[in-house]
């Protein structure tokens, strides 16, 4: 596969099964995939195709039961729970379908959350968070709680939270799944901009071909395996 930079993520014959004995479910059955720094990859596939499982492993939230997952050459499968937490803390940002913001907590405090675990001082935290809010076009909405924001705004707060730490990798799980077309396009344009100008590698799981079309590379999963992996020449 063509790549724009050094390899960030390397999946080697990756397998993940749940349960035991006859009840075993093989969510991933030998997936090999390289993603380079700076790529924007869309992962598609029907429910149960293993795309979410693959996403969780790439996000260091889950560990494979077979094969290897290398993050910048580091074998994540061999790491402890805390070591994976530290990887997440320093290199990975998450955006979820359901936004997953802390309720009754202002937008700016939601954005500051990852920085708290980086032991950063309050003033530095605030200035980084304000900057991230500006990047997602939410300057002036800092003190609104999530329930005072629209779905699109909430998702932008979630993106600000994901990028405030300047991560190497941004994982987006159906980021437009709860949004109408106009809001979805806004979010996609924002992700594209972050990918291009900030150089953040983005891996996005989506159902919608319209959204996948924004990515430069589209990987399709089926039954726990990669069905197709192709460059998207139409990418904007």
């Amino acid at each position, binding site marked *: 596969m063509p790549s724009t930079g050094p390899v960030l993520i390397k999946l080697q014959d990756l397998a993940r099964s749940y349960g035991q004995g006859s009840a075993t479910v093989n969510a991933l059955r030998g997936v090999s995939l390289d993603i380079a720094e700076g790529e924007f990859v869309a992962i598609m596939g029907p429910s149960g195709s293993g795309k979410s499982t693959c996403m*969780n492993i790439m*996000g260091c*939230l*889950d560990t494979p039961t077979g094969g290897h997952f290398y993050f910048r050459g580091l074998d994540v499968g061999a790491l402890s*729970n*805390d070591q994976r*937490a*530290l990887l*997440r*803390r*320093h290199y990975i940002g*998450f955006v*979820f379908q359901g936004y*997953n*913001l*802390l*309720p*009754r907590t202002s937008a700016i405090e939601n954005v500051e*959350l*990852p920085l*708290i*675990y*980086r*032991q950063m001082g309050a003033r530095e935290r605030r200035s980084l968070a304000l900057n991230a809010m500006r990047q997602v076009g939410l300057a002036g909405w800092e003190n609104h709680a999530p329930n005072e924001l629209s779905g699109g705004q909430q998702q932008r707060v979630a993106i600000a*939270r994901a990028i405030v730490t300047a991560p190497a990798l941004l994982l987006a799980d159906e980021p437009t799944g709860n949004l109408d077309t106009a809001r979805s396009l806004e979010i996609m344009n924002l992700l594209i901009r972050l990918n291009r100008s900030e150089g953040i590698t983005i891996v996005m799981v989506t159902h919608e071909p319209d959204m996948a079309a924004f990515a430069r590379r589209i990987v399709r999963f089926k039954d726990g395996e990669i069905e197709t992996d192709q460059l998207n020449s139409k990418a904007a």
Partner: protein
Amino acid sequence: MFLETILLAFRAIRRNTLRSTLTALGIIIGVAAVTALVTIGNGTTQSVVSGVSRLGSNLLSVRPGEPGGAPGSARSTARPFNAADAAAIADQIGGVKAVAPIASAKVTSVVGNENWETSVAGTLNTYFEAGQWTLASGRLFTEGELHAGNPVCVIGETVRRHLFGKSDPIGQALRLQRIPCTVIGLLASKGAGAFGMDQDDIVIIPLRAFQRRIAGNIDVDFINVAARADTATAKVKRDIENLLRERRRIGTGQRDDFSVFDMTEISSTLSNITTVLTGLLSAVAAVSLLVGGIGIMNIMLVSVTERTREIGIRLAVGALRRQVLAQFLVEAVVLSLFGGLIGVAIGLSLAAAMAGWLNVPFVFEPTVVVGSFMFSGLVGVLFGYFPARRAANLNPIDALRHE
């Protein structure tokens, strides 16, 4: 980071003010009960011990009646003592500092229009030494007055207050029944005794004056003996018993018809009893603290379930398991320390109010306050740990999907 965790805990507690308050209520009640009971118990112990010690340390009291009865009981049936018994104790027993024969009765004393029912004791100057009385003003009896049984008296503070008001009692006359009596001395106040009686409510006259003019006999109701500080009171007590058995002709095998009370012994017995009672009551109160702790655990478990998604988010953005554990543990501890603080305040005010009501001193003991406060913290740690560990061990993927 630690500060952040504490701020976070405060915020989580404030977010659910009513629930937090109700949860803390269990701890508040427990800590308040322990604090109040221990404080009141200590006050009672102190009141008993100091009351007995105000009677005079190393004091033995010899009274008619069989041993085993309370002081003063059954004394009408037993033979009374006489002045010679007291003299014999003073002469023949070693280690004795002062021996005071005492005859007493309740008598109405009158000055002008004022009258006051008080106890009148006929005794010698040794009485003041044995009971560790000091004079506030005036003087004690002279040898002549004691020998002749002159109508002179030394009065206690309570009697002075009721009969003389603001005027100086020294040199003034007082009537005991129909006997006029000149006040020559005023005793310094000693306050309440071990059994709650007012020790200052007393008029003291020469023994002979009492026997001749009030009682009309030569009886001595009881004998107070002060042992020297370097002498074991137990030995003095034994010697007195032997001497009196001899003087009262009680044969071997016969029961004593008098008893010797060792005030030091009574004091330590009483303080032991009150200490044990205090301990028991506090143990009962501590059970309510335990119940409060279970309340905290319950609410923390609910809170962990409610905030599963939040925990998932925190884990996803890079919180370590121990940081999540610390967050919930600190929340439980802050909640219970908060309860402890309010509990201590309520407990102390309750103790102060009860002390006034029960007429025991309010003994503020920092160890009780610090102890119950620490204990509430401990309850928080113990009962907060399980829910916190549960939160920390959540799988981030499941936690994020939790509805």
